[in-house]
């Protein structure tokens, strides 16, 4: 959920300075401003949820990824306040500061998340339930590559969101950007998917041994089809399809990731049973989540409904 929602508003931030005009940029920001807070809350739920459901995993993963997490938090701060401050500015020069803050914050946050993703796939050094590796373990060629891949991925989400929510010049520009990004994203997915099985024998066996190849092949095949449909929807100038198909693509990549990493919550030493909270805590959480999450989804959908339609470039309030 976090990736789908904050993915597009971080993507908008990454694309921000490349927009053709100042008006376009205002439209871009206005398309996400009512949603960013709720979207970022899914990140808090992600962290908080990890703490609640898998406290041991939380206590290992957080220190292991210390540097990218701090970078991500700082990026999110700059991105978040940019929304507030940009509306209060009185000169073009002042506004430019917060435009930059919005952009650089989005880039840093996204890149850091991508690094964490790559480092997570590579695995974390654990002994006796604590992290024993080095803080710089998580920064290497694979994770830098996944960092860049995520920048492309979120940018694609952002551009397809803009196709839906903006019109005329901004939308046309978004469509052109999305078309270029599809190629970059496709290459990134192929690169990560091919590299990952060679990182760890377990993953290699999971995907390529015996009959698994046939059971799991539908997933990359579905991803390939999705990319084809995505390209087609862009050529045919569809408005909503590109965004929906991009989300589907992310979902398929996520599925592939889960399959590769199962059953570990801290690769490759702590399974999710080992890392989980005690059952009395988990059952309380489960009750809470099953009651409350549907309600959250309802009023989140309501707020998207309230702000439906194309965004304007005027002052929002």
């Amino acid at each position, binding site marked *: 959920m976090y990736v789908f929602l904050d993915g597009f508003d971080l993507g908008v931030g990454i694309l921000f300075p490349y927009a053709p005009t100042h008006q376009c940029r205002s439209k871009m920001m206005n398309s996400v401003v009512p949603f960013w807070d709720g979207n*970022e809350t899914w990140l808090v739920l992600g962290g908080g949820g990890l703490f609640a*459901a898998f406290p041991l995993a939380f206590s290992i993963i957080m*220190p292991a990824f210390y540097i990218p997490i701090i970078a991500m938090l700082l990026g999110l701060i700059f991105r*978040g306040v940019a929304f507030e401050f940009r509306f209060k500015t009185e000169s073009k020069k002042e506004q430019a500061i917060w435009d930059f803050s919005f952009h650089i914050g989005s880039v840093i946050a996204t890149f850091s998340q991508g690094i964490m993703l790559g480092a997570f796939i590579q695995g974390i050094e654990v002994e006796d339930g604590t992290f024993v590796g080095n*803080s710089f373990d998580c920064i290497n060629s694979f994770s830098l590559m996944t960092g860049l891949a995520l920048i492309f991925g979120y940018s694609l989400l952002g551009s397809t969101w803009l196709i839906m929510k903006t019109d005329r010049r901004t939308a046309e520009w978004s469509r052109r950007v999305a078309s270029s990004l599809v190629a970059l994203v496709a290459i990134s997915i192929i690169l990560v998917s091919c590299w990952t099985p060679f990182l760890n024998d377990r993953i290699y066996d999971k995907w390529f041994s015996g009959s698994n190849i046939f059971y799991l092949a539908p997933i990359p095949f579905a991803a390939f089809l999705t990319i084809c449909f995505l390209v087609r929807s862009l050529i045919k100038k569809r408005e909503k399809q590109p965004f929906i198909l991009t989300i589907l693509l992310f979902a398929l990549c996520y599925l592939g990731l889960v399959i590769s990493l199962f059953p570990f919550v801290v690769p490759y030493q702590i399974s999710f049973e080992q890392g989980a909270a005690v059952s009395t805590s988990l059952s309380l959480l489960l009750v809470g989540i099953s009651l409350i999450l549907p309600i*959250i989804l309802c009023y989140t959908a309501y707020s998207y409904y309230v702000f439906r339609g194309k965004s304007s470039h005027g002052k929002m309030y």
Partner: protein
Amino acid sequence: MTFDPILLARIQFAFTISFHIIFPAFTIGLAGYLACVEALYLKTKNQTYKEIYKFWVKIFSIIFGMGVVSGVVLSYQIGTNWAGFSAKTGNILGPLFGFEVLTAFFLEASFLGIMLFGWNKVSPKMHFASTVIVAIGTLISAFWIIAANSWMHTPQGFIIQDGIFYPTNWIDIIFNPSFIYRFCHMVLATYLTCAFVVCGVSAWLLYHKKSVEHAKVMFKMALFFIAIFIPLQIFVGDLHGINTLHHQPAKIAAIEAIWETQKGAPLTLFGIPDEASETTKYAIEIPRLASLVLTHEIDGEIAGLKSFPVDERPPVLPLFFLFRLMVAIGFAMLATGVMGVFLNFKQKLFTSIWFQKWCMIMTPSGFIALLSGWFVTEIGRQPYLVYGLLRTRDAASNIASGQVLFSLISFVVVYLIIFGAATFYILRLIAKGVHTN
């Protein structure tokens, strides 16, 4: 030169959480105030109220945004720098934080969008509902976070096995012995903090003869609120103190710099506590008053610091002075409320220049009192993170001091930039006065 990584981690947490609390301290109260103002607008159809709402909502959105981003930092910091704490208490505190996100954060965040940007997109009733929902969301948030924090002070409803805490009774965990006092004291504190900001800002507007009509309305609302709720807050604070004496006697002994266990203990108004000699130098005392306040009996017994081993005592100097600062501000607030009522009775409320100046000075009083109080209670819990059970120094992550120094410096620099910018924009908004159509 290497620093102790645990000390750095403590400084970092203290810095980031002190920064963070300033924002909800204001927005919890302001959300409630905005709900009141909008209710008055809907009822009276008086445009003044709508204009007051629009004036404050711009400030609200800035501060709320800062609260969100600084809050995200805290939720991750518990993991990054306090891995021992996370692993050991996760079963208990994890769900409490999880529920805070599920029941409060999403609510506030989603309806905030409508509150800020949805004036022309939803009906007036729906917009009002959004404001109310955000105000309720902030209170729900306070509920869960105080539940978690108060459990750290007065833990119950758990067992410990192999150093890990396991929950046995969630009602006991949430409604632990100090919860209700902390919750009431904090909520009142945030509402009063907001009241003093509204009071100070409207005093400034009155003094400079800007938006006078609106300023009069806001000034009166704020002062009436203060007059009613400050006495209540002092009363709640008193009960909170009695509860703390019962459950955390070493903290009270340190706050009052009481060294010897005694009945009918005097209240030390001022002095310099000296831990080396275990005495308070230059003490100005009022006989029996400490016992009277803390036990409601002239001859009540209060345990002295000497009755606790040295490694169980919190630092005395900061607690002694910060507590006195908080109480002094509390009484200054009381005086403000009383004066406001008196001047209103004499029909001089809007013409008394010295009172306007006084109110302007009192604008940040809530923040200072609130921060002092939090420092007292959190430093007072030391050397424990979970009182009596888990020491702070046993709960930190195993991270090299270089990393922590890097993150600490980064946070300080970034927070100062952001806070500086926010203050600048807020002051500029206030200086413009209330916009009328």
